[in-house]
């Protein structure tokens, strides 16, 4: 079956602009996670959803970052007033339930802020 998909695969924007990154999880997966991976580093947790609600958003670096999952499937990560330090690969992962350990990762969106 289809895996986790993320769009766009690459996004180049200018400092100060607003961006939206989309994640389509595996069908039926109720848990959805966002991570950020900087060059040469491991993924760092941002937020996770159980269904429509954000169960843990403790990894969001500041209030410029926001994520939604209005219908419990697709999720959008939103970044306002982008800064050059936001440049990274943003990874999405899904899991059948939040109590099922394995997370299935998408290919990521590479965000470059000029």
């Amino acid at each position, binding site marked *: 079956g289809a895996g986790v998909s993320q769009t766009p695969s690459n996004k180049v924007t200018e400092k100060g602009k607003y961006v939206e990154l989309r994640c389509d999880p595996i069908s039926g997966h109720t848990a959805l996670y966002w991570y950020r991976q900087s060059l040469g580093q491991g*993924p760092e947790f941002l937020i996770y959803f159980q269904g429509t609600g954000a169960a843990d958003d403790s990894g969001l670096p500041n209030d410029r970052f926001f994520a939604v999952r209005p219908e419990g499937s697709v999720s959008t990560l939103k970044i306002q007033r982008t800064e050059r330090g936001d440049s990274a690969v943003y990874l999405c992962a899904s899991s059948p339930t939040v109590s099922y350990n394995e997370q299935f990762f998408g*290919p990521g969106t590479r965000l470059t802020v000029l």
Partner: protein
Amino acid sequence: QQQVKQSPQSLIVQKGGIPIINCAYENTAFDYFPWYQQFPGKGPALLIAIRPDVSEKKEGRFTISFNKSAKQFSLHIMDSQPGDSATYFCAASKVRNQFYFGTGTSLTVIP
């Protein structure tokens, strides 16, 4: 604060060699320890995972050794192949919680 520490940062082995990657953690509440493989431009893919109630798990050419008292675990790749060249990440988590990843090990297997 790095929850999971991984070493080495990079590793080069000959084909057929046995690369070993090590990780250490502090939080004794962690109860799931996966290893992920990542190729350039791709997302991480699960290789193998272990829980703290066992000391070793083997799947194909990949083995995890787990030392609960030392809070360490390692990945061994038997009979390594050039196709194994990738970045490997260890991670740790509690149920219903996020993954904490190590910083990654870049493995190169020379033909």
